């Protein structure tokens, strides 16, 4: 009897935790959804801001975030994958590799403003990329790298050693064994980690505000050297820096909702890709 009560209380406690988290999340989404939903229209999505950002849309910010995320991905996805493959499959497990791995883990905990300032020094000043979409994308890429490396490594670790040994025992070289018998099965897991990292980067403000994001720029960047508008920075501006904050509040909510939807779409896309990869494998 006592055991049952203990179990009931235990489960009850776990359930309360879950419901609390869910409630906060739903409340949050409902708030943004209901207030932001009102301002979302075709005009809001397809036009540039007007009249000191009190009217019009957020099209340059949507495109800016989209483009800067692509630059981020070009840096962070392949570099993260290859680094992880080297660390997990080739590198000897010495004190040095342990230190490297630990440093990578620690880098993922560094505040994003630190990356922002580092980006200003390295990309904007030293490499003379200027405050541009390129500098911002590369800064976000650095921020994302620890995440993509770690996620890729975890995905590789999840592949049983027997796949590797089985291939080697059939006369495969180490690279053949990795390419044909490890990577294809690790890829879905890698992708998941990549997109989580990229969606985090897409929502960052601090790393881009000094490196390339513009306060107000009602047209799209034409080259890698141009500045750009981005959703998170635009939201930050609308919520804290604008001269008529209460007037533009609905637009801020709309921007927040669009940012959330954009990230949701990215995640959905990866779920679909992952599902298809798994299905191909099963056939």
């Amino acid at each position, binding site marked *: 009897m006592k055991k049952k009560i203990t179990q009931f209380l235990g489960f009850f406690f776990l359930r309360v935790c879950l419901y609390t988290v869910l409630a906060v999340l739903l409340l949050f989404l409902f708030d943004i959804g209901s207030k932001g939903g009102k301002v979302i229209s075709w005009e809001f999505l397809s036009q540039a801001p007007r009249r000191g950002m009190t009217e019009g849309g957020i099209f340059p910010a949507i495109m800016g975030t989209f483009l800067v995320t692509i630059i981020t991905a070009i840096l962070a996805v392949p570099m993260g994958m290859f680094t992880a493959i080297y660390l997990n499959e080739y590198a*000897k*497990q010495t004190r040095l590799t342990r230190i490297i791995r630990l440093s990578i883990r620690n880098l993922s905990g560094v505040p994003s403003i630190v990356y922002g300032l580092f980006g200003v020094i390295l990309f904007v000043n030293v490499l003379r990329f200027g405050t541009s979409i390129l500098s911002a994308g590369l800064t976000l890429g650095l921020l994302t790298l620890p995440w993509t490396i770690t996620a890729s490594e975890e995905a590789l670790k999840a592949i*049983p050693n*027997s*796949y*590797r*040994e*089985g*291939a*080697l*025992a*059939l*006369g*495969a*070289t180490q690279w*053949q064994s990795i390419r*044909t*018998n490890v990577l294809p*099965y690790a890829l879905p897991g890698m992708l998941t980690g990549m997109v989580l990292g990229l969606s985090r980067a897409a929502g960052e403000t601090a790393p881009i505000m000094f490196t390339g994001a513009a306060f107000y720029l009602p047209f799209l960047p034409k080259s890698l050297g141009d500045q750009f508008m981005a959703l998170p920075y635009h939201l930050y501006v609308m919520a804290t820096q604008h001269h008529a904050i209460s007037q533009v509040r609905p637009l801020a909510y709309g921007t927040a909702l669009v940012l959330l939807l954009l990230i949701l779409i990215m995640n959905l896309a990866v779920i679909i890709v992952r599902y298809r990869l798994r299905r191909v*494998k*099963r*056939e």
Partner: protein
Amino acid sequence: MKAGTKIETRHLNFYYGNKRALKDVSLACQTHKVTAIIGPSGCGKSTFIRALNRMNDVILGTRIEGKVLLDGKDIYSPKVDVAELRKKVGMVFQKPNPFPKSIFDNVAYGLRIEGMRDKRKIGKIVEKSLREAALWDEVKDRLRENAFSLSGGQQQRLCIARSLAVEPEVMLFDEPCSAIDPIATAKIEDLIEKMKENYTVVIVTHNMQQAARVADYTAFMMLGELIEYSETKKIFTNPSRKLTEDYITGRFG
């Protein structure tokens, strides 16, 4: 080198870090015979068999001394291409380890990494290998199904077929039946009996009866040392060392 020796070790020592797992093991396996290696857990029999196709290379922090000769040539010589060696010396592991691919693709794996593209040729070799592994009749209508849909015993025979497809000269079995049921075990033992016509077989086993049933020669190892090695009949009826007798009569181990 004795006439008829296919693969042999000379004064083989093996270390995991500072731990010495093999102590001066010299053993010659005869061509087209089955050699069994028995001994209690941790006696070094798996380490020994993995030294024969350099599978220990992938374990970090290990070191080997002495020689392993395949047809008289040292397989640890720097000139040796490890991938080529492993094609000649195939291995079946303790736990069936099919790849998460179709039955067909599992068997074709070794052919494809060699660069074979001719679909008809691949198909023929896959069928031949599955027949040799006594699995063809059970899977011929489901070659496109995932290998994980097979039972444990079938998976192990699939792994045997996969190794046979690359036409090895020596087949190593590292406790191939320890994870499967008795009926499946009997099938694999039959298979090993037949395989010696075409291959030289070395099998590590925990199961003394299995050694008695399938092996022409048996080696008894303990604590990394080769205690006794002779014809299976002699080992089981008239061992020359007291330790061997104690082990096979079940006094320890």
